[in-house]
């Protein structure tokens, strides 16, 4: 066993032992414990748990890479996945906390006095959460597979086992306290390599300041800012300028950011975290704390992305561009390069048979003539996976083995904490909304708790199965999960609070319209349920790729939300206003006084 493997097993083992210890200590004794952690969670603690719940394998492993290769265009993820918390804190969380029930579909069902509304909400919740949880499972499998020398399937089984222990025994209570521990692990794992890399490139230990600092590798002043240096290096190789590169178009970035924001605010596994605090005022502050803890990672990520991109290019382009000696000889590549080639995340092809690596943008027609002149025959780095930016970061920066091991534990913590939150949202929708809400209204509390645990087991088995055999739509976390949360759930929740006279017919029609329009646009591009060959773009009818004002399917949720609002308002006018007691319920939700702990009835 290598030193790195020993470190990795020790640190991952230690974190797992902590999670199991917490599970034993925090067993659920009632449905209130199981669904809302007993309702007595401190708002700062809940903020921390929410941050871990929210920051997924994608936030931890993939986001810095998406920023690294999209430059300014990657801002949609930074603004979208944080700005949603403003909407959640101002428009939803305090009111839903005041309502004081266990699940999101329960609010929709009660507010719109309709089982149909509740069932539509359950369907959206399950579709969004299941798609989302597959990404966490594959993240766990990949992290285990690459670092712990076990197979992908074994990795997923181990992940399932660990989640099962604390989620089945403790429900929301166990999940809350493990999420707090997982936040601590993941934030150290993310920031420590970032501090080192920032020190190394800019002399400033704070990545947030280093990104705006002077480029001074190993303390040697360059007279240029880091971002100016990066802009120069990437444009010299024919790539787009880092600080101005847009994603699609400005309009697409606008709509994409809005979709991610609305989707974030409407995701049930995040909303239910706010049901665990004692009071309405706690829910307001707790959302602020959640965003503080999230912002620590989200303001670090752009520095990691930019600096790792610079490091990656500097590793390959070791001298003047165009001179033969400027490019790294393949046989001289560093060890980390070899290790990541073995995983397939990096791949090199010697297109001009010179034994050296040419990494440049071969899609840029203006650059092609120069490349031709130098004898370059195409970009030879045929694969540079986004995930490499975070995963290989400590090795590229030459950090010790324990830091690499910590990154593995951090990635696992991010994936496990989000998976657990999603699994709870799924199982409570089944046991509380479907079983107790629709099929067995008179079920005793004890039996409902048992049903909750059985639903959790079923959800874990399903997530594990789909992680091992990922269906096509697993690739659609952003398009499907955020798309549905934005287009279907968010408008229904918001109108439920802010439009007192919105009626059942309007809300149900709006939810279904938003859902259908969004799924149609996504499936039209990506195939029905992402099955290859079933996409139905029709360029002849003016429906080519991104036909709706150049908006990509990932960014479509906000359009779906707009459709939802419009349809709801149109249908609302033709149906009777909600009964008196529902209007009173809305009045009551708007005022903090009289809030109790969340209850199931």
């Amino acid at each position, binding site marked *: 066993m290598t030193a790195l493997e020993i470190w990795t097993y020790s640190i991952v083992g230690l974190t797992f032992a902590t999670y199991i210890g917490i599970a034993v200590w925090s067993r659920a004794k009632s449905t209130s414990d199981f669904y809302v952690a007993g309702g007595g969670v401190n708002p700062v603690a809940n903020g921390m748990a929410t941050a871990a719940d929210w920051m997924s394998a994608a936030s931890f492993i993939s986001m810095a890479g998406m*920023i690294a290769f999209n430059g*300014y265009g*990657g*801002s949609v993820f*930074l*603004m979208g996945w*944080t*700005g949603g*918390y*403003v909407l959640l*804190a*101002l*428009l939803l969380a*305090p009111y839903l906390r005041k309502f004081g029930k266990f699940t999101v579909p329960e609010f929709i069902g009660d507010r719109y006095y309709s089982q149909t509304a509740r069932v539509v909400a359950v369907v959206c919740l399950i579709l969004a959460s299941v798609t989302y949880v597959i990404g966490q499972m594959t993240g766990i499998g990949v992290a285990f597979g690459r670092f712990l020398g076990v197979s992908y399937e074994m990795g997923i089984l181990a992940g399932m086992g660990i989640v099962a222990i604390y989620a089945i025994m403790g429900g929301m209570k166990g999940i809350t306290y493990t999420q707090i521990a997982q936040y601590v692990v993941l934030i150290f794992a993310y920031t420590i390599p970032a501090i080192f890399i920032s020190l190394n490139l800019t002399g400033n230990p704070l990545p*947030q*300041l280093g*990104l*705006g*600092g*002077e480029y001074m590798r190993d303390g040697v002043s360059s007279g240029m*800012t*880091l*971002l*100016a240096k990066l802009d120069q290096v990437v444009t010299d190789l024919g790539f787009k300028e880092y*600080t*101005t590169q847009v994603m699609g178009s*400005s309009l697409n*970035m*606008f709509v994409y*950011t*809005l979709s991610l924001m609305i989707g974030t605010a409407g995701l049930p596994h995040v909303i239910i975290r706010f049901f665990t605090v004692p*009071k*309405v*005022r706690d829910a*307001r*502050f707790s*959302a*602020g704390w959640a*965003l*503080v803890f999230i*912002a620590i990672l*989200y*303001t670090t990520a*752009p520095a990691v992305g930019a600096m790792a991109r610079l490091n990656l290019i500097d590793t390959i382009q070791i001298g003047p561009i165009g001179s033969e000696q400027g490019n790294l000889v393949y046989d001289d590549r560093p060890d980390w390069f070899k290790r990541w080639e073995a995983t397939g995340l990096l791949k090199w092809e010697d297109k001009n048979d010179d034994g050296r690596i040419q990494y440049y943008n071969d899609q840029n027609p203006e650059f092609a003539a120069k490349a031709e002149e130098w004898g370059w025959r195409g970009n030879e780095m045929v694969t540079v996976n986004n995930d490499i930016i975070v995963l290989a970061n400590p090795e590229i920066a030459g950090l010790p083995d324990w830091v690499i091991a910590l990154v593995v534990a951090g990635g696992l913590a991010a994936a496990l904490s989000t998976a657990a939150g999603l699994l709870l949202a799924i199982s409570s929708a089944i046991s509380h909304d479907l079983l107790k809400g629709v099929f067995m209204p008179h079920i005793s509390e004890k039996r409902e708790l048992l049903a909750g645990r059985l639903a959790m087991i079923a959800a874990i088995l399903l997530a594990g199965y789909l992680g091992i055999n990922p269906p096509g739509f697993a690739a659609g976390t952003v398009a499907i999960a955020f798309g549905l949360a934005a287009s279907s759930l968010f408008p229904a929740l918001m109108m439920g609070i802010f439009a007192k006279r919105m009626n059942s017919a309007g809300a149900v029609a709006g939810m279904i319209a938003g859902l259908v329009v969004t799924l149609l646009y996504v499936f039209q591009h990506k195939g029905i349920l992402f099955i290859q060959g079933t996409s139905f773009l029709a360029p002849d009818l003016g429906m080519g790729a991104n036909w709706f004002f150049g908006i990509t399917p990932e960014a479509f949720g906000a359009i779906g939300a707009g459709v939802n609002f419009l349809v709801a308002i149109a249908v609302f006018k033709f149906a009777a206003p909600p009964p008196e007691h529902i209007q009173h319920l809305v*009045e009551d939700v*708007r*005022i*903090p*006084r*009289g*809030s109790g702990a969340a209850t199931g009835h």
Partner: protein
Amino acid sequence: MTPEKRADYWSANLLLLMVLLIIWFVVSFGFGILLVEPLNAFHLGGYPLGFWFAQQGSIYVFVALIFIYAAAMNKLDIKFDVGEE
């Protein structure tokens, strides 16, 4: 509590929301996307200003907005006597 007082509390809340959401929109969609090019002519340290808003500044403002909201709502709750005991 009288219906008038209830309505006053709600409109004070809506006014607060409107102000905060305008700021939310301006720093992200405004400074970070629509006005990013003109703002990039200015610099904040080594950051082009528009780029800074898109990748750093908007996030800091979001955090501040939520705490301002929470504190202001607490005051409103006391003023209209609708808070929790």
